[in-house]
C-alpha cells in the first residue's frame, strides 16, 4: 500500500516551481534540489543554506547538468 498523496500547501507548490526555475537557470544543482524544495516550502532555508547552494553550483557544477 502506498500513502495517499497529501495536498500541497501553496508554499510547497510555490517552492517546487521556484526550485525548478532555479535549477533551469543553473543557479543550484540537481543534487541539492530536494533539500531546496523542502526548505523553501517549510521556510527553513537560512542565509547560510542559500550561500551554500549557490556556492556549490558555482564551485562544483554538475558535469551534465543532471547529476
Amino acid at each position, binding site marked *: 500500500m502506498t500513502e495517499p498523496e497529501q495536498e500541497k500547501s501553496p508554499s510547497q507548490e510555490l*517552492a517546487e516551481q521556484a526550485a525548478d526555475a532555479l535549477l533551469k537557470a543553473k543557479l543550484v544543482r540537481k543534487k541539492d534540489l530536494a533539500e531546496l524544495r523542502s526548505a523553501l516550502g517549510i521556510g527553513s532555508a537560512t542565509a547560510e543554506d542559500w*550561500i551554500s547552494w549557490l556556492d556549490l553550483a558555482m564551485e562544483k557544477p554538475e558535469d551534465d547538468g543532471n547529476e
Partner: protein
Amino acid sequence: MSRAIKQLTLRSFRGATKPVDIPLDTSKPLVVLFGENGCGKSSLIDAIDFIANESYGSLMNRSVGGHRHPFLASLGSDLADIEIKLQTEEGGAWTAKLEKTRATVERTSTSGELPTVHVLRRAEILRIVEAKPAERYQELGRLIDVSSYQKSETALREALRTIEDSLQRAVDRVDQASSRLEELWEAEGSPGASAAAWGAAKAKEAVAELEQREATLKSVTQAIDSVKERRNEYGQALRRMRSAEQRLDGIGTELKQLPSLEGADAVALVALLQRAKPLVAEGTNTTACPLCLQSIPGEDLRTSIEERLSKLDDYVKLADRITAAERNRDSKAAVLDNSGTSMLSALSKLVELADEATSEVVAEGQSHLAALQDALGSCPEEITKDAIRAGRELCRALAPLTDELDDVSSDLAKHNAIRIQHEALIDAKKDALHQDQLVAQLKKTHEIVEGARKAHVDSVLHSIGSECEALYARIHPEEKLGSPRLSMHESKPGSVELEGVFQNRTDIPPQGYYSESHLDTLGFCVWLAIAQRGDHKSTILLIDDVFTSVDAQHISRIVDLISDVAEEFAQVIVATHYRSWRDRYKRAHAPGLKAQLLELHRWTLDKGISLSSTKLAVEELEEQCETDPLERQAVASQAGILLEALLDYLSLNYRRRLPRNHDNEWTLWDLLSACRKLFGALEIERDQAKASDGSDDEGDEEEALATVTEAVAPFYEETGRLVFLRNQVGCHFNLSGDEISNDDVRAFGEATAKLVRSVSCHACGEIPSRNKGDHFACTCGKTRMRPLEYDK
C-alpha cells in the same frame, strides 16, 4: 468519512451559561442555524473558531476597552471553566480550554485531523472590500498563505546582504594590498610597467640561493659569536683560577709566619688529632691510645686531645682555610678545563664553517683561518694561547660578515614582503571576484524566487478574481455592475487592487459606487472564491449572519449559491437571522434534504443557549396527519400554508396572471385559479436507479439511471377538491367546519403533502426552479420540471 463536525459542546463559553450539546447531521453538507438576534448564533460560530483556529472569534473585531479574553467566559463563569469539545465524523475529537490568555487545544482521539475552518463575519467582508490595497494584500496574503516561502525569501535577502558585506571587505583588502605593493614598488624606484606587474615578477623570482647564503652567513656569524662568548668565558675562568691559586699561596705565607715550634708539622699534627677525636669519643670504651697502644683511660685521652687542639687553635683555623682554598682552586681548575674544551670546540666549529663558506670576507681572512687551523692541529686536545690568539684574529677578519648577513636578510625580507602583498592581492582579487559572482547569482536567485511568488500570488488573485466574478454574476445577473477583479498593484509591492464595473466604467473601486448590499455580496464572493482554492474536503465554512442589507431576491440567489457549493466542502454552517432563509429549505424552495435546519430559541441567563431541529414543512404535516388525536386545526392550517407557499412559488416561476390589488397579496383561491391550467400541463421527470437485471457488471460504478415521467395534475385535483377545508377548519370559526370529519381533514393534509412531494426532488428536496434552457431543474439535477414556460 469527512472532517465534518458531528458534535459540538460548549461549557461556560460566551452565551453558553449552561452546558449545551449540538449534534450535527454529517450526512447533510449544509447546516442552517436560524435564530433571531441575541439567541447565541455567534457564540456557536466563535466556539468552532476558538477550537479550530485558537481565535477569540467575533471578539477580535470589537473593542472592549482592554483585554478581550475575559469576555470569552459566559456571565457568572470563570475563565478556567471554559471548555469546548468538538467531534468529527471521521472520529477526531478535541477539547479546547483557555490557559491564561490563549486557547489550548488537546486531541482526545487517536485518529482524525482537525478540519480547516474559514469564518466569514461582516468584519472580514469589510477587511476584504473596504481595506486599503496594502491591507487587502495582508488579508488576502494571510488566506493565500505563502508565509513559509516568504521566510526563505527573507533568508535569501539576508544572504545577499552578508555576501555584499564580504564583497566590500574583499575589495578593501584588494585596495590595502595594492596600496602596500605600490609603496614597495616606489621604494624600489618604480621599476617596470606597474606595481602589480613588478610584484608578480618579483614574487616569481627564485630565492633559494639567497636563503642558502643567509643560512651559511648566519651559521658563520653565530660561530663567531660563539667563539667570542667561549673566549670570554675562558678568560674569566682563567682569571678565577689564578685568583684561587693566589689565595692558596697567601695562606701558605701566613703559615710560614706562625711560631716554628711545631712548624709545618703542626698542620699535620692538627689533622692527626682531629682524625683521632672520633676514635676516643665517649661511648667507644677506649682504654688505650690508638696510635701507640699505650694503656691510657679513654677520659684521659679525650682530655689530652682537646687540650692539645686548644693550644694549636691558630693552626686548626689555618688548616681549615687551606683545605677550603685547595677545594676552590680545584673547582676553578675544573671550570677552566671545561671552558678550554668549549673554546676548542667553538674554534673548531668556526674553522669548519668558515672553510665551507664562500665569501670575499672569508677569502680575505684565509691566512687567519690557516693560522687557526695550524694552532688547533698542533695541539688538538688542549686549548693553547696560539689557538686563542689565532681565533681572535680570525673573528676580527670575519667581522664584516655580520654586515653581509644584514644585507642578505634585508633583501630576503623585502622579497617576502613583496611576495606576501602580491599573494594577498591575488587572494583578495580572487575572493572579490567570487563574492561578486555570488552576489550576482544571489540577485538572480532572489529575482526568480520573488518573481515566482509574485507570479503565483498574481495567478491566485487572478483565479480568485475570475471565480469571484462568476460567483458574483450568479447573485447579480444582468446588472450593470460587478465583474470584480483582484490584481497586484503594478508599482506598489504588497498591494492588491480591487476593481469592478459600474455602468460603462470598468475600473471602478467598488467601495466608491457600490451599495452596501453589493459590497456585502462582493466580499462574500471574494471570501468564497479564496476558500474554494484550498483543500475543500477538509474545510468547513462558517458564515456568521453576514447579509444584513441584502434584499429578498438576492438572498434567494445567495441561498441557491451556498446550497450549490456546500457539497464541495466538508461542511458549511450558515448562521442567519433571516427566517425566510430557513423557510426556503423548510418549504422545498431550496434543497431541504441536503440541509440540517436548527433553530435557536430565546436566550436567557438561566437557560443559556438552547436549540432544536426544524423539520421540513411537508414532513411536519405528514407527522401531524399520522398523530392521534388529530389536531384538526393545525393540520388544516399547516396544509393551507404549505399549499399557499407552493402555489405562490410556482406562480412566480411561471409568471402566472393574478388579479391586481393594492398590496400584491393574493388569496389561496387566487393562486389556485392562476395555477389550475398549469398543473394540467406540468410534468415531473425523475432520475431513478434501474432495477437490477441480474448481470454482475463489476467495476461499473456508475449507477444505471432510468427517467420516470410523472403528471402532477391528479395530486392537484385531489388537493383542490378539499382545499375549502383550509378556511372552514384551519382559519375561521364557523359551525359548518365542525361538521367536517377528521378523515376529511386528514385527507386534505395528506393530499397537500403528496402534491408538494409530487413536485419536489426526492433526493435533494427542492422544487425544480433553476432555468436549464428547456426545463427547470433542482439543485442536484435529478429532478426536472417541464415545461419551462406556460402562458395559457
